[in-house]
Structures are given as structure tokens and as C-alpha cells.
């Protein structure tokens, strides 16, 4: 089964033919994964293209599915799906526009519900916890960086010709300012989209930790810095704002540790990491205006990975301190 995901969408020809046909708004026959759907939804919305302008090569296969995953709603149409969505938050998470705190939390719960459902029989508690945590971070950061243009989606499916293996793909796409312009905005000398991607996936790197001329969050931060009432012990690290990271470094680490696959695009570069850990940079057919990513995990590979215990002295002491009673 050929799977058309984020790479497939980004390799579409963006030119419009004389009859008005454009590959970007055409859904060809075959299986499409969340990376494809989030990119389509975000870019169509960005370009002002409505659901009625999409063309389906196999409408009998895709239209029903598109209504189930709420693509019409994502593009401004009313919800016309006639069935109860009994698998939402279990086997798939629909297209959700990350436009406020409520939708960000809802998307996180739906995607994480799918992850927990997938991982429950595998006994991989640490992977489950780590991936769920990263999903929450990515959603929150897409909302804050993506100027409310970001879409989220997840879908699981059975791997063809395998006994019990399943795949889960989680994807995000926004049409915000992208990595390169964001890094330029905060004064970093990065010269290409490829370099910008590379910077953003490094552990500890976040544009929000670089001194910026003006921070987006400064507008709504409450003036509640009232100082440490017991000065002298437990000195804290000062920070100009409350952002600590993007979650991308952790996602890359999880993809590599659990033999997943990743596609991460911004501007004119796509970083791909395959299940063997091989990295490559490709060029999309058109420049992606923001950031889009898709990650895919196979239960066969997840189940074979060994989970190491986490924790250290300070974290353990803090956990003791936080608990209600000992």
C-alpha cells in the first residue's frame, strides 16, 4: 500500500492550469496519511480555498473519510458527517484548528488518546508518556508560533502484510512565519531553511530563549512576578519569558530511539528521518510558508525498544516534596 503523506503533498505542482486545475487542491486515489491532510487543510485555508474547490479523483473513497476527519469544517463548511464518530480520540484525531487554549487542549487529548490506545498492549509506558508530553508541547507551540493557522491530526492504520502491527502518524501544519524568519526575528544569523531546521531540532535551542526585540507573549503575561518570599535558598533561573522549548528535539530523539519516521518542513527544506535513523534534506516543490511536520511510529518497532528508567536525585527529591503525604 503506497502511503501519500506530507512529502507527497509538498511535491505537488503549485501552478494552476488553464482549466483552473491545480495539484494542490486535487486528492488523487490512494491512502493519504495525516501529514497530507494537515498540509492540505492549512494551505487551503491560507490560500482562501474552500472545500467545494477541492477535486477528488476517487470521491467514493475520500469524501466520506474527509467528512469524518472534519476537513469541510476545517475549511469553513458546516459539519455534514451523518454518523457518530465512535473512533475519534481512539483510532484517529480529526483535523483541529489550533486557534485557542480550548482547541489546543482538545487536540492534545484526542491525539494522546490515540497514542494510549495504540500503546496499551505494548507495555511501553515511558514511550507513551514521553510522546504524549511532546504532543502537548508541539500543539501549544504551534498555537503560539503559528498565529492560529495550525492544524493537527492523527490516524492509526494496520500495516499491510503484517500480523498485528499498526502504524500511528501524528501531524501538524501551520502557515505562520516559519523557522528561518522566526530566527531572523530574534537576531540569529541563520542563512537557509535547512540551517534553521537544524538549529530548531537541537536540544536546548528555542527561539523563545533568545533575547528578542519584542516577544509575542509579552502582551498577555500577567504582571505577577512578586519575588521569592523566602530569599536565600532555592535561587531561581531568571528568564525573560516563560517559553522553555519547542519539543522538537525530544520528538527527534523519540523518533530515533523508537525507529519511527519524521518529516519536518519549513520554507524550502524538508528534513526526513527514516526508520533506520538516516537523515536527508529534500526540497519541496513549493515553499512552505510556516512549519509542518509528520511523525510515524510502528508498533512492531516500538515494542522491540528497551525502556530505560528515568530520574535523578534532584527530580526524585522534588517528587517527594510535591506529594501530599509520605
Amino acid at each position, binding site marked *: 500500500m503506497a502511503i501519500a503523506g506530507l512529502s507527497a503533498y509538498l511535491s505537488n505542482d503549485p501552478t494552476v492550469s488553464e482549466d483552473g486545475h491545480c495539484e494542490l487542491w486535487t486528492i488523487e486515489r490512494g491512502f493519504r496519511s495525516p501529514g497530507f491532510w494537515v498540509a492540505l487543510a492549512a494551505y487551503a485555508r491560507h490560500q482562501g480555498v474552500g472545500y467545494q474547490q477541492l477535486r477528488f479523483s476517487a470521491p467514493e473513497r475520500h469524501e466520506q473519510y474527509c467528512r469524518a476527519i472534519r476537513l469541510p469544517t476545517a475549511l469553513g463548511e458546516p459539519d455534514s458527517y451523518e454518523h457518530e464518530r465512535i473512533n475519534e480520540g481512539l483510532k484517529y484525531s480529526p483535523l483541529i484548528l489550533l486557534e485557542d487554549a480550548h482547541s489546543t487542549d482538545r487536540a492534545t487529548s484526542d491525539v494522546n488518546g490515540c497514542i494510549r490506545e495504540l500503546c496499551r498492549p505494548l507495555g511501553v509506558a515511558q514511550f507513551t508518556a514521553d510522546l504524549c508530553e511532546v504532543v502537548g508541547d508541539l500543539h501549544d507551540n504551534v498555537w503560539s508560533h503559528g498565529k492560529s493557522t495550525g492544524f493537527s491530526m492523527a490516524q492509526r492504520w494496520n500495516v499491510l502484510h503484517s500480523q498485528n502491527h499498526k502504524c500511528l502518524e501524528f501531524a501538524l501544519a501551520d502557515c505562520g512565519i516559519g523557522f528561518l524568519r522566526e530566527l531572523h526575528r530574534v537576531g540569529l544569523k541563520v542563512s537557509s531553511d535547512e540551517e534553521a531546521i537544524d538549529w530548531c531540532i537541537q536540544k536546548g535551542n528555542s527561539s523563545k530563549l533568545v533575547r528578542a526585540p519584542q516577544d509575542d507573549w509579552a502582551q498577555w503575561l500577567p504582571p505577577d512576578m512578586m519575588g*521569592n518570599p523566602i530569599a536565600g535558598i532555592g535561587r531561581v533561573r531568571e528568564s525573560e519569558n*516563560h517559553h522553555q522549548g519547542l519539543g522538537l528535539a525530544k520528538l527527534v530523539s523519540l523518533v530515533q530511539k523508537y525507529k519511527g519516521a519524521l518529516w519536518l518542513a519549513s520554507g524550502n527544506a524538508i528534513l526526513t528521518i527514516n526508520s533506520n535513523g538516516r537523515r536527508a534534506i529534500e526540497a519541496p516543490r513549493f515553499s512552505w510558508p510556516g512549519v509542518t511536520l509528520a511523525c510515524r511510529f510502528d508498533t512492531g518497532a516500538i515494542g522491540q525498544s528497551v525502556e530505560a528508567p528515568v530520574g535523578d536525585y534532584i527530580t526524585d*527529591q522534588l517528587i517527594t*516534596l510535591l506529594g*501530599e503525604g509520605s
Partner: protein
Amino acid sequence: MNHRVVSPQGVDLASRRSASQLRQDVEKELIAGHKVIFDLSKVESVSESYADELFGILTLTRGVEVFGTLIAVRGAKPNVMQSLARAIKERLDADEEGALRGTLQTLVAAKHAKDARNPRAGL
């Protein structure tokens, strides 16, 4: 001292905005002289962003001493506790690890002593 039990909405806590609003509510309770217990028994995951905005910033504004004396967590799953503890740790000065270890030892010992004196007291 009275205590207030706070139960965040949702199973997966993700957005900074939600955490920020909850933190402002918690600050009001603390200013009013109440202790706060977070009931996280229904929570499955906490994002780094959420944990930092709530527990990280409380560490920044009130110091690590607030935990175990004025703020406690009830019913949290181990992975949730890990996320919260990591957020606090990230906000503490890494350059002062030796002093921090000593401070935590003192605080944990004080907490154990208090719990031993009155095992049902909670905070």
C-alpha cells in the same frame, strides 16, 4: 490554615494559557492565606509548556520552599509527577546544584518530620 483543592480540567494538560489562568487562581488562594492541593488524579499527561507555566513559574515567583509547605499534589501518576518535578528543576539554578541538593534534603526532611507528627494532616 484552610486549604483549597484545585482540579484542572482535562486529561491531557497542554496549553500555557490554561496553565497561566490556573496559576493566577492559585496565586490568589495563596495571597488569601490558603494552602493549595492540586488534585491530578484524572490527568494522564502534562506538557513541558503547561508544567513550566504552572509549576515552573510558581518556583520562579515563590521559591522551591512553597512545595510541601503551601502547595502539594494529590493522586498524580508517576509520569505526571516526573513532568512537574522536571519543570521545577529546570527553573532552579543549575549552577547551584550543591546548595540545591542541601536545600531539598532539608525540605524533604522537614516534610517527613511533619508527616510523622501528623500523618493525616496532608499539607
